[in-house]
């Protein structure tokens, strides 16, 4: 009991210390994404005077949440419910930083897809703004990606709005899955 009470206090301190505007862990149904986006938008209006910066942050949050929605992987220990393996499950945290905002997301994904995603992220990080725009345009024009999955285009868009490099990590979770964490810094 005391342990739990300490833990919630630690969590509060931690969120406070990292200037977290919003954090959520759970199933990201479309209605919930709508609610989170509404919250983020209202908070941004209150704390970010530059409308251009506000839009960039909001756009990044939209793409990150929808990435969680579209690209969630197999569930591990928590997948005990019959539908939980199929539900879009993840964690998101949006925090104020000294240079702008940080949008952090994490989700489990199929281990076999890690190399492909890593390659994609590395290629994004190797390009400058002009290169990213060119790639985005080419990918949009050639129609080789699915609109439902969004996939490759989403990360390029996130990188373009961020203006910085994408920070990421993959941690093996069990024999079939890895935990993918992404940090997008939007400098304002």
């Amino acid at each position, binding site marked *: 009991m005391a342990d739990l009470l300490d833990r919630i206090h630690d969590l509060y301190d931690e969120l406070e210390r990292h200037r977290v505007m919003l954090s959520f862990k759970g199933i990201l149904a*479309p209605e919930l*994404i*709508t609610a989170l*986006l*509404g919250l983020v938008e209202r908070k941004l209006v209150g704390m970010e005077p530059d*409308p*251009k910066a506000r*839009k*960039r942050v*909001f*756009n990044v949050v*939209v*793409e990150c949440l*929808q990435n969680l*929605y*579209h690209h969630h992987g197999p569930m591990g220990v928590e997948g005990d419910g019959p539908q939980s393996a199929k539900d879009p499950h993840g964690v998101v945290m949006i925090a104020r930083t000294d240079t702008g905002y940080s949008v952090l997301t994490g989700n489990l994904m199929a281990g076999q897809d890690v190399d492909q995603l890593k390659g994609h992220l590395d290629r994004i990080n190797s390009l400058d703004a002009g290169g990213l*725009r060119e790639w*985005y*345009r080419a990918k*949009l*024009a050639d*129609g080789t*990606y699915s*609109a*439902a999955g*969004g996939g490759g*285009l*989403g990360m390029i*868009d996130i990188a*373009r*709005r961020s203006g910085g490099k994408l920070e990421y990590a993959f941690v093996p979770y069990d024999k079939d899955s890895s935990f993918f964490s992404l940090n997008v810094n939007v400098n304002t």
Partner: protein
Amino acid sequence: MEPLYLEGSPKTPHVHFDPVTGMLELKGRSIPENSVDFYKPLIDWIDKYGRQPSAKTSLHVQLEYFNTSSSKCILDVFKRLEPIRAAGNEVTVLWHYEADDEDMLEAGEDYSGIINLPFKMIQIAEVNGD
């Protein structure tokens, strides 16, 4: 042919396609998770409209936000208008962007580089979604 009218929502744009005036409006924000579902009736409408289009068609795009899932669907909307123009009708895309929103201007330029339709970039003070 019936006009297409959809009210805007927090994630989907206001849509008003008028077959008589040839004025097609897409306004507000387009950030749904499943853009294909949302855009299908719009694409179907344009396909039907293309059989007997107005001599002049103007597509007004006035979006504050759109996600990458919508970007492909918006491209499809443009693509469906190309044959209408190729058949000798006047088709123009009016791409609106807020004065401070370079990203939205760039997005319009990206489309105009891909699509064979005349684009007009129009700077506005603020997007009104309703």
